[in-house]
């Protein structure tokens, strides 16, 4: 197809076909259409291509680009729909327009504002004779225009899909800085029209950077100032305030969007200086049934940064297309209500624990409102503070009232940047009682990780101590800020603090609103971030209550029990269990600071018989046991149960722990943020399993606790977990779990959610853990590593932990990692060890060491390296970064210079 270059100077020109040869853009689908009135459009239409394939379209995707792009933005979507149709999948026709004054559509010399643009698009689809069902797809300004079309064509509409866009600009919030700059006097013309500045900046937002040929594709229709007038007009059309001519239309549109009931999809690049998470949060509020996925690391040009085409097609097939959740009827027309049963709208389905058995988390507080015995004991440097059940209940009630007065409502998100203790406990129960969703991210994520987590969850309120609030202020974290302590007015203003908890306590009491339902979301707990960016894990009230019940039943916690918890999620469950609880003095962001003496003090203060510790804390408790006074040893002798939660812990460490707590049965609990209790094994069982010499590889984590179901999904030759869930003995695969206390889903991570429940059994709620392991003949679960660390060899997939344990039996080896090199399905084993004495630099292991390491394992090792230190993830400083190590080994074994991994 030939095309004439756009006229150089003329301000008025008709639509033209794009030139051939633009990277990834197939001009075979380019069409021109002149509508009544004379405007002419360039658009991409795959109708003819589908007809040539003999594929009957199931519907049309009407794609609308933003500023300053053109239909080139949708080239991957176009290609993917045709590929799918060619492969026999549902055929989606794509109609992707170049908006007027943009791309290769006509230039009229007129400035178009929003109402006009919506009318323009409607005139276009009418001239085209577009019939339903139609699913709109819009980015940036195209999101707004496409929603304008969607809300005015209910008879054709079957769904809406949005990428980084906005329909609402809060009156009290200035428009994003980059747009303010673009709109500034003099800049409007200069930045967006006279020069390619605005275009350049937008293209530079891609992460990773766009290849030159793609940049050239985006720039192609905009070589001259007269061709770029439309870019400037769009910038000028941003309705900065109510006096703007587009403001009224946008306001009406925002309201109309909230009334849409068709399935909705939002794909977002959070690294967007313009349409940040604020706007996503606003849209989620308007379309709460939408599937939402934030691609961490992606930016404004999310269609370039993330697998958008693939996601769009997946979603269309699942939620709109024939056989999708909306059913075949969904395509007959408008008014389809999307299935809200996903994690993005977790106020929903099957909570395992039925309503009949549901006891609210705060039930004990109400029951014991006249009880003057200890509920929470807080240990700080300045002494011990006892908080009775009566006081705790009183605080919770008054705080709930105060928060409600401040505007905290059911479903609002409240982020807690507070150290464990009596205050945090009261705040948590007050929020739960109101139905507000508590957002808890471990301070161990670091400021950057915490900020990423908070921007993702987009809390409405933040409650914190000065340090957390200062970070929130300085880094622009979202949420109305509430301080735990009353601050001098100047500090409060400097931190942007609205109110202190003390002021909330002191307000007039008030009847609390109705309690939340069991299916309402209760909490978002962030994962540790040791396996990629931290993910928000959503729990409903029923699920959180089920966590409490599982914990209480498994460890026989009664109102007579005293708990010491050095592990955050469980620390908060004490009052829900009706047990006394205390948190030992420690820096929560550094569990290794917990000393044996601090544990003894906490045990003594709460007369505790149960102690929960993280593996890192156990290390330090054992290391500092020598400092214990005789009296403290006596106190620790009163503990009957000690348990390790989190990463697996070795038999030796548990043995050493029992030496400090001589009368305690030691348990190692296997679980994860998504399901805090999966299985449990006692030290006695660990010893018995070892003595039995079963030959199983990996770490035995014991039997699933009551209510938990475990299945294994076998690995294929490429190490992917594709096997149907099974209870087969000795079969390596991904560990699948089901439990009443399982999470509801991930927050705003639709694709992650999908993957976590992929091919799971139909009965019950299931979760793919990403851990690999097997079940033994006695029904015990063995963990052998993480799915991405599985080594897919030509003899089948192998998990690394078994080989590592074998290598660690070699006397000269302190720690070992086994990783794969080479193509999937053909990977070879490489061992990397920390030897004793420590190697000064990375090198091939000396022949004798290499021989011993090789002999220790049945797996053939192509190379053995000795390094000074194995790379570990920053978060735990304990989990070996096997992915990084594998890349390192691959490089070195290809002949690259040997440097430290």
């Amino acid at each position, binding site marked *: 197809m030939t095309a004439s270059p756009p006229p150089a100077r003329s301000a008025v020109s008709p639509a033209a076909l794009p030139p051939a040869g633009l990277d990834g853009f197939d001009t075979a689908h380019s069409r021109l259409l002149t509508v009544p009135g004379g405007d002419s459009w360039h658009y991409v239409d795959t109708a003819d291509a589908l007809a040539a394939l003999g594929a009957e379209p199931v519907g049309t995707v009407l794609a609308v680009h933003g500023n300053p792009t053109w239909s080139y933005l949708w080239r991957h979507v176009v290609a993917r729909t045709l590929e799918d149709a060619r492969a026999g999948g549902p055929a989606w026709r794509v109609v992707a327009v170049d908006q007027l004054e943009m791309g290769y559509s006509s230039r009229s010399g007129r400035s178009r504002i929003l109402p006009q643009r919506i009318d323009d698009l409607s005139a276009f689809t009418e001239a085209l004779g577009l019939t339903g069902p139609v699913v709109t797809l819009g980015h940036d300004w195209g999101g707004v225009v496409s929603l304008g079309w969607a809300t005015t064509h209910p008879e054709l509409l079957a769904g809406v899909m949005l990428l980084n866009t906005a329909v609402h600009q809060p009156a009290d919030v200035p428009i994003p800085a980059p747009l303010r700059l673009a709109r500034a006097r003099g800049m409007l013309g200069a930045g967006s029209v006279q020069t390619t500045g605005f275009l350049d900046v937008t293209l530079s937002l891609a992460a990773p950077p766009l290849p030159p040929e793609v940049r050239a594709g985006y720039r192609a229709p905009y070589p001259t100032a007269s061709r770029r007038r439309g870019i400037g007009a769009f910038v000028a059309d941003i309705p900065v305030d109510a006096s703007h001519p587009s403001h009224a239309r946008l306001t009406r549109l925002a309201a109309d969007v909230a009334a849409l009931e068709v399935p909705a999809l939002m794909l977002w690049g959070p690294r967007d200086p313009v349409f940040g998470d604020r706007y996503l949060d606003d849209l989620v509020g308007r379309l709460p049934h939408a599937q939402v996925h934030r691609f961490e690391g992606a930016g404004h040009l999310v269609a370039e940064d993330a697998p958008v085409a693939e996601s769009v097609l997946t979603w269309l097939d699942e939620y709109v297309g024939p056989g999708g959740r909306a059913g075949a009827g969904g395509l007959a027309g408008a008014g389809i209500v999307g299935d809200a049963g996903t994690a993005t709208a977790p106020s929903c389905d099957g909570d395992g624990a039925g309503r009949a058995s549901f006891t609210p988390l705060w039930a004990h507080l109400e029951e014991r409102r006249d009880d003057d015995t200890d509920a929470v004991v807080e240990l700080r440097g300045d002494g011990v503070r006892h908080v009775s059940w009566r006081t705790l209940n009183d605080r919770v009630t008054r705080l709930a009232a105060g928060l409600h007065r401040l505007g905290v409502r059911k479903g609002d998100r409240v982020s807690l940047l507070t150290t464990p203790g009596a205050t945090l406990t009261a705040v948590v129960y007050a929020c739960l009682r109101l139905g507000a969703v508590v957002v808890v991210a471990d301070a161990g994520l670091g400021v950057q990780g915490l900020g990423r987590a908070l921007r993702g969850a987009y809390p409405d309120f933040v409650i914190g101590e000065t340090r957390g609030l200062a970070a929130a202020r300085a880094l622009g974290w979202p949420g109305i800020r509430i301080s735990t302590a009353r601050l001098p007015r100047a500090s409060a203003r400097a931190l942007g603090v609205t109110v202190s908890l003390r002021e909330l306590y002191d307000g007039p009491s008030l009847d609390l609103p109705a309690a939340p339902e069991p299916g309402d979301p209760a909490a978002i707990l962030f994962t540790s971030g040791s396996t990629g960016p931290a993910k928000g894990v959503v729990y409903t009230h029923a699920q959180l209550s089920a966590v409490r019940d599982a914990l209480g039943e498994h460890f026989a916690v009664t109102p007579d029990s005293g708990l010491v918890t050095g592990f955050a999620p469980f620390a908060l469950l004490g009052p829900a269990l009706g047990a006394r609880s205390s948190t030992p003095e420690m820096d929560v962001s550094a569990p290794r600071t917990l000393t044996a003496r601090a544990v003894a003090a906490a045990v003594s203060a709460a007369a505790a018989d149960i102690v929960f510790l993280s593996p890192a804390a156990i290390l330090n408790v054992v290391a500092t046991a020598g400092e214990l006074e005789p009296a403290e040893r006596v106190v620790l002798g009163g503990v009957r149960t000690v348990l390790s939660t989190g990463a697996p812990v070795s038999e030796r460490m548990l043995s050493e722990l029992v030496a400090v707590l001589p009368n305690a049965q030691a348990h190692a609990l296997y679980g994860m943020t998504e399901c805090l209790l999966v299985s449990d094994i006692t030290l006695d069982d660990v010893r018995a399993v070892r003595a039995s010499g079963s030959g199983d590889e990996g770490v035995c984590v014991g039997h699933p606790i009551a209510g938990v179901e475990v299945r294994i999904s076998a690995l294929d030759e490429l190490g992917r977990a594709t096997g149907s869930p099974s209870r087969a003995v000795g079969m390596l695969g991904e560990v699948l779990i089901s439990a009443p206390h399982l999470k509801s889903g991930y927050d705003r991570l639709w694709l992650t959610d999908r993957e976590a429940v992929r091919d799971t059994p139909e009965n019950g709620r299931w979760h793919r853990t990403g851990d690999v392991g097997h079940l033994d003949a006695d029904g015990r679960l063995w963990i052998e590593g993480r799915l991405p660390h599985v080594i897919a060899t030509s003899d089948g997939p192998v998990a690394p932990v078994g080989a590592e344990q074998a290598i660690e039996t070699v006397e000269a080896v302190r720690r070992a990692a086994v990783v794969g090199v080479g193509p999937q399905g053909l990977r070879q084993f490489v061992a990397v060890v920390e030897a004793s004495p420590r190697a000064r630099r990375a090198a091939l292991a000396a022949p004798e060491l290499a021989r011993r390491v090789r002999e220790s394992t049945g797996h053939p090792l*192509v*190379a053995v390296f000795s390094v000074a230190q194995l790379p570990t993830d920053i978060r735990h400083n304990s989990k070996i970064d096997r992915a990084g190590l594998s890349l390192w080994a*691959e490089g070195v*074994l290809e*002949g690259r210079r040997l440097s430290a991994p």
Partner: protein
Amino acid sequence: MTVLVTGASGLLGRAVAAEIADRGVRVRTLQRRPSGLAGRGGGGSVADVAGSVTDAAAVARAVEGVDAVVHLAAKVSLAGDPDEFTAVNVEGTRLLLDAAERAGVARFVQISSPSVAHAGSSLVGAGAEPADPARARGLYARTKAEGELIALAHDRPGFAVVAVRPHLVWGPGDTQLVERIVDRARHGRLPLLGDGTALIDSTYIDNAATAIASALERAAHPDAHGRPFVVTNGEPRPVAELLAGICLAAGVRPPRWSVPAGLARAAGGAVERWWAVRPGTDEPPMTRFLAEQLSTAHWFDQRATRHALAWAPSVSLDEGLRRLAAHYAAR
């Protein structure tokens, strides 16, 4: 049944002839020097025919009455007269193929080299890509690539052709690789290139021989005929470890000094060019080809080979090194 083995005076040729004879088959050999196998006891008999594969009359005599051919005869060296390489590795192969087909031979195994298919970059889990004379480095690889293409083009019903590419064959009595390594190490002239961490495959002599014998048996199988197969021990090792293993087996000190890989490649290229114009028949100490071989990864996907040839190595790397050590200890 009678099998012709060409080039049976070399390490691999001798081992192949012996392996086939051990399977109870009559073996005829063709080479310029006696194979040293004639009149050996056990298994089938071995009879020598003296001559070169470039000699049409000798070739015609050699293929008369044989059922299958294993073609190992080749000019193998790192430098030399280009015409000589072509005469032996290209024209000699063509001559033999045509004669064999005319004589009613049913199976033909062409011994080739992995170097026919790559240009010196890293090979990580590589398959047996088609031979490519344009990309192959050095006279040997280029002419062997042509020879392999000619051989596989001859494959047709009734005349099954398989190409086997053993990679870096070594073992007791090896003068090509082991002796050179040991000799240089003994004189302190064996450097490691780079850190010696490039992962390379190698093939113990007995495994190469059984693989070729298996290829002969399986030549007409639908999975095998018309295709090339790389053969290795399937136990890649860092080059330093392999060199050290060979040196230790021979009782000499392993290399301790290293030359930056890039420098070795550049120097190898210069030496190669100088050697080409210098009269004489000895070989250059380091060619660019060898430098690449020893400083980049070379290991292969053995799944197709093992499946199609119904073969697996029977001697592990460690066992091979033990046998090498026993060989040196007995000398």
